[in-house]
């Protein structure tokens, strides 16, 4: 059974729990492997957090808008996040993280992008000047 949900959230980290709950509910009802539920939830949570942190530098919390579209079936998890923020966040342009060196040096930035890249099979980003930022992540069952 295909699970589809469209959510509109604001640039407020208080919204993160609701998105995580939707991801879990969708995976549980779609036939997508439950063993991947935690990992996919983590990647989505980190992606939304990054959008909230980076796309709205001058917008008060609660005033920016992010459209989230989740579509899940037994073989594929897909999430699309479109925001109207002024800055774009492109996880592909972030430096590759050497996690061992990273944590041993006490640096904590970049861990979210590392988790997104490590967990998801596809991370695609599109930015249109004067338009909206779009981030799509896909995870396959196999």
């Amino acid at each position, binding site marked *: 059974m295909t699970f589809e949900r469209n959510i509109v959230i604001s*640039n*407020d*980290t*208080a919204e*993160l*729990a*609701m998105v*995580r*709950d939707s991801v879990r509910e969708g995976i549980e009802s779609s036939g997508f492997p439950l063993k991947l539920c*935690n*990992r996919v939830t*983590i990647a989505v*949570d*980190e992606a*939304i*957090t990054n959008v*909230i*942190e980076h796309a*709205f530098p001058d917008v*008060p*919390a*609660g005033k920016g808008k992010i459209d989230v579209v989740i579509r899940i079936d037994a073989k594929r998890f897909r999430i699309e996040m479109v925001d109207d923020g002024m800055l774009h966040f492109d996880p592909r342009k972030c430096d590759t993280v050497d*996690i*061992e060196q990273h*944590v*041993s040096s*006490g*640096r*904590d*930035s970049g*861990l*979210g992008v*590392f*988790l997104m890249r*490590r*967990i998801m099979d596809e991370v695609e980003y599109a930015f249109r000047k004067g338009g909206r930022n779009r981030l799509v992540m896909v995870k396959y069952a196999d």
Partner: protein
Amino acid sequence: MRAQPSRVTRILISSSNQTITLDPSTSARDDERQMSSSLNIHQRNDGSVVILHLSGTLDGHTFVEMERAMKELVAAGNKIFVVELSELTYIASAGVGVFINVQQTVSEHGGGLLLVDPSPVVKEVFDILGLQALFQIHSSTEHALAAAERLDG
């Protein structure tokens, strides 16, 4: 710079004789809405070791309060922490970052941050990030306290 939350997450910090609610104005509706995004921190001491029992979620929203609590404890001179994670149902990189920063700070002064019994979701994040290289992760508080004694010595 991380976005600041528009509302204070409900944090309970309780000691043996005291429970403090940092956001007493939280409405019943907010309680329901943020049920899965609240963090409770319970503190007790064993000699010079600070034992923190975390329950709830440590995500991009609640990490702010965890960070504040840890900074206050470190500023007060504490340098050895045992953090119980069995009832922490979620951790994001922002929460991991708090642990990394505290570990980095206290280890420079002979201290340490020892983690105990992470829940499956938390353990999964630790495994992906390879945090075994940075933290001691113990199966029980007793084992962690024994290791803490060696640090203290």
